[in-house]
């Protein structure tokens, strides 16, 4: 029993060590990439060490007692009939209480520290839909240079500059799109989480949640919805793309421009279908927007810069928009053929598009850089 | 809780109290939390309705005061029924029990009428938060009064058919506990819902 137990402890410890060192765990909470996640990890790791100490003492104690005082065949022994000991009781009431009090001091400090909202932050509104994320850059300098000069809007990827403190306002949205059965998406509770950057904050309809964070290094960080939000909760992913200063400036400049004019004939045909096509059950532009065109739907992901390289993934990050730098036409076409087959219950219905129409629309979307 | 009317072999309990009485008290303490939660929901949503009608638009305080008085009077008749049972005057006990049941039915009837008036005035259970919390809270209470009336009528019937145990005062006392509880809850509901003024955006 003892060997097996220590084996298990050893295995667990090794696993944790492996976990914290390896780079191929994109949602590892013990591999922080920003100050918030760093503080959250720094707080728990010493506590886990304390817990490990208690674990060894208590479990070791139980195993030792069980082995030492086990009944042996043929041995007649009368155990002492002890009923209790008040001093001991007081001792093992106070000792754990002291340990816990010791642990709670930095905990309370960090609760308050993380609830602060600095003034110099960049503001982004995060919108949780069933089942994808949208982002609106609400600061005045982040308005677009076309149309009614609204905020920069993206879907599925949150793009931020490195080192910049970002203040996220969280909002649950619903009521726009409908799936093939006519079931609307609803404003329900989600939870916004990027393990390597920050812990969760629930997105509650009727409430405005907040997260303040920043990222230390450029890169792509995985996140996903962490509160059960219905059918496709398991695939409500997103990514946080952190850019260095130059790339950030370029990204902002590009986002402020309207969607590109298509250059190829196929893409132009796709644009026509996108803007004017009437399909079984509706039009693309009823839900989707492409900046600079009459497409102004707000119930579904904004497609203005669908093919920008920072827009890494689509449909709740169900599929990557680029594979090895090449447009991922296969997954986009499968999605256009029948979204519900790719992601059961997706709020984009199957419009019964022909293969030619799918080719054209795909070409148009990949012209939107 | 109809079986509360059945006295078990209570002679040798640890506390000396009949188990049925202890059980009834525990049940009623659970009921306190039930109504506590319902009242909390009402108070929490007080003034949160986004559209009317609001409480001031529909409440008829004098009318509800009268029906509240009817319910309170039934507590008195319940006490009289119990007193009669203790004096083993079971005829008089049945009269008072019936009176109590009639008063209870009058209250429930008044509530049903009040509900229909509110609905006519445009306040339904799905109209706004006021309608939601009001109908659910007072409706739950009304169901409790109705259950109490059923228990009272059963007592009368069983007493007439001589199906009650010899000590008829005991089942009457148990039903009385429940009845008084339901009355007291109404005093709280009446105060919180009708008497405490509600800020309403519409007036």
């Amino acid at each position, binding site marked *: 029993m003892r060997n097996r137990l220590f084996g298990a402890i050893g295995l667990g410890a090794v696993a944790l060590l492996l976990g914290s060192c390896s780079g191929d765990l994109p949602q590892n909470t013990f591999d922080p990439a920003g100050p918030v996640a760093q503080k959250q990890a720094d*707080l728990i790791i010493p506590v886990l060490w304390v*817990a490990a100490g208690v674990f060894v003492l208590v479990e070791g104690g139980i195993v030792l007692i069980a082995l030492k005082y086990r009944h042996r065949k043929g041995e007649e022994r009368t155990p002492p*009939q002890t009923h209790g000991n008040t001093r001991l009781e007081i001792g093992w009431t106070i000792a754990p209480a002291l340990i816990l009090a010791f642990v709670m001091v930095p*905990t309370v400090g960090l609760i308050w520290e993380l609830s602060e909202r600095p003034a110099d932050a960049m503001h982004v509104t995060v919108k949780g839909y069933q089942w994808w994320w949208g982002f609106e850059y609400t600061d005045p300098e982040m308005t677009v240079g076309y149309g009614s000069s609204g905020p920069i809007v993206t879907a599925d990827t949150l793009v931020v500059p490195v080192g910049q403190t970002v203040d996220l306002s969280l909002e649950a949205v619903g009521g726009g799109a409908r799936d093939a059965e006519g079931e609307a998406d609803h404003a329900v509770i989600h939870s916004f989480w990027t393990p390597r950057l920050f812990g969760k904050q629930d997105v509650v309809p009727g409430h405005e949640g907040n997260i303040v964070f920043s990222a230390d290094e450029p890169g792509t960080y995985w996140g996903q919805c962490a509160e059960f939000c219905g059918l496709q909760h*398991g695939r409500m992913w997103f990514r946080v793309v952190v850019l260095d200063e130059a790339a950030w400036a370029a990204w902002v400049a590009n986002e402020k421009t309207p969607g590109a004019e298509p250059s190829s004939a196929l893409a132009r045909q796709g644009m026509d279908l996108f803007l004017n096509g009437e399909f079984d059950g509706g039009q693309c532009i009823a839900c989707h927007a492409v900046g600079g065109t009459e497409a102004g739907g707000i119930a579904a992901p904004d497609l203005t810069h669908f093919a920008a390289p920072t827009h890494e993934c689509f449909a709740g990050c169900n599929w990557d928009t680029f594979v090895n730098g090449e447009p991922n036409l296969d997954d986009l076409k499968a999605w256009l053929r029948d979204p519900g087959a790719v992601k059961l219950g997706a709020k984009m219905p199957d419009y019964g598009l022909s293969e030619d129409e799918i080719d054209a629309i795909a070409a148009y979307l990949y012209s939107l850089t | 809780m109809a079986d509360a009317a059945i006295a078990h072999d209570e002679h040798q309990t640890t506390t000396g109290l009949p188990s*049925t009485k202890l059980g009834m008290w525990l049940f009623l303490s659970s009921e306190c939390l*039930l109504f506590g939660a319902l009242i909390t929901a009402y108070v*929490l949503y007080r003034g949160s309705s986004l559209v009317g009608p609001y409480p001031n638009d529909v409440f008829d305080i004098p009318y509800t005061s009268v029906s509240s008085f009817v319910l309170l009077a039934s507590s008195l008749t319940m006490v009289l029924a119990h007193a009669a049972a203790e004096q083993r005057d079971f005829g008089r006990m049945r009269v008072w029990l019936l009176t109590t049941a009639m008063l209870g039915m009058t209250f429930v009837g008044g509530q049903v009428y009040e509900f229909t008036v509110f609905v006519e005035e445009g306040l339904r259970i799905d109209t706004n938060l006021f309608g939601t919390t009001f109908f659910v809270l007072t409706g739950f209470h009304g169901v409790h009064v109705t259950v109490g009336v059923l228990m009272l009528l059963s007592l009368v019937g069983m007493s007439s058919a001589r199906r009650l145990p010899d000590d008829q005062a005991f089942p009457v006392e148990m039903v009385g506990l429940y009845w008084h509880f339901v009355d007291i809850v109404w005093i709280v509901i009446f105060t919180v819902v009708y008497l405490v003024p509600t800020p309403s955006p519409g007036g």
Partner: protein
Amino acid sequence: MASVSVVAPSKGLVRRPMATGGFWSWFTTVDHKKIGIMYGISAFVFFVIGGLEALLIRAQLYQPDGTLLNADQYNQIFTTHGITMVFLFVMPMAAAFFNYLIPLMIGARDVAFPRLNAFSFWAFILGAMFLYSSAFLGGLPNCGWFCYAPNSTTDPTSGATFYALGLLIAGIASTVGAVNLAVTVINLRAPGMSLFRVPVLVWMGLVVQLLLVFSLPIITVALFQLLFDRRFNTAFFDPTRGGEPLLWQHMFWLFGHPEVYVLILPAFAIFSEILPVFSRKPLFGYQFVVFSGIAIGFIGFGVWAHHMYAAGLGPVANTAFGISTAIIGVPTGIKIFNWMATMYKGDLRLQSPMLFCIGGIMMFVIGGLSGVTHSIVPSDYQQTDTYYVVAHFHYVIFGGGVFAFFGGLVYWWPKVFARMFPERLSKLVFWLMLIGFNLTFGPMHILGLGGMIRRTYTYPEGLGLTLWNQLATVGSFIIALSVAIFALGAIASFRKPKGLANEDPWDARTLEWMTACPPAAHNFDEIPTVHALDEFWHRKYAEDKEGRLVRVPAGASDHEPDGHGVALAIHLPSPSFWPLVAALGLPVMSYGVIYSWWLIGIGAIITVTALMGWAMEPSVAEEH
């Protein structure tokens, strides 16, 4: 037990069932022991069903992008797994132990309200069947056992409606049962059995029942609100009409956290009974074990919002609930230290009930330690809603609870069935279950810290957590194997003839072992008079001047003979079918809420008629 068949007295509304033996007698019994056995069997059946659901979950997650279940099926399965294990396995299994043992342990002939006891059982089983009938009526509940609004109020399937109604029926069953058992403990103790002479199991039973009495009404109201929002379009949790989704969470967890202790205190109760017997020592610090149990019960009402740190309640609430969560660790620790001290210097008989207890305590310690980390609020923003939490509560409820239940089943098996549970098989069950359990739930700590969310039907390969998922799946099938072996052992024990060589096979300490195995319908021929904690032990053993145990020769006890309740004058409550009929009206009314007002009326008539018949029927059939 001889089958007694007597013609009912003519006064009843309908002829009264009198048989106390035979198949049909189970439907009319009011005997707490038979009801306890029925609770146990049903709970075990639901454990197997819930376990099969768990195997489906693990099979789906064995590899990335699993395709065994689709999102819809998975959501139904994980929801039903949770509901089944909490409401249809752990709670009724605890009810089985409490129902069977409490009257025996306090020297009572039955519970305070035997027919209400039968009603509780039938309401529970019918509520469970109602819940599962949803599988054929549009799908099982799919909103998680916590069923957060507004996802649950807007979901287009009828799953959440079945959830609300099914749990309401189960809640009625539990409330009635809780009142019944609490009154039994308070009021029906044998002469001399003061509250500080009752076994810890009875104490914990009382605390559990009181927790239920005070927490169930809250979830009852919440379930009605959810039901009305879905069915009658009320606005309780509808933010578009000013409703507050967090109200559901507050009410759910205000019930839900005491509920956690409802699930674990029965395990503490069983540990506290078995450890002293197999250590051949009294329980160390009896009062402290009892008071810490009471303290856990009280503080359990003050920690609910630690399920909601990420909901945005603000730093004040998070600080307060973080601290209360840390505090509740203290009384839990007290219990563990007292159990260790009970074993210390004992003469430990490592038979399977003891192994299950030691293993269970050790597993519970792990769950307790990870529970304490939940008080570290800022870090919990990372761990909440991940597999770390799944690992935590399985170490508590499976590691603590299920191990205790299996230990308790083996320990009281001879009491109930007059046959020993095959020891070699139960030891095998223990070791297999210990290995399978750790293999399943140990890796889930790593899964959670590595970023895998709960309630997800899939995960991408890129998450890098495939190996740990595979280990967990393998472990779950080892657990399944251990449970199958347990079932085999149960069958094997029944193939042996009834009868024990020794009616006190473990040399036990408490009153239930002072009577026959299985006990007669009236439990005790003579109600014992109690002089001490561990009464039965003190009738067997005295301590000599050096504090050593000396067996008291039979018949030489210095106790006065028990003089209460001479066997001849025992009037046991008679069987009745009204409890079953009254319970039958509840699911009928529930179907009515979903399908037709007429059914509500029919169900109400069934229940009211049954209650009338019940009230008219004397608890004890008259002499003839």
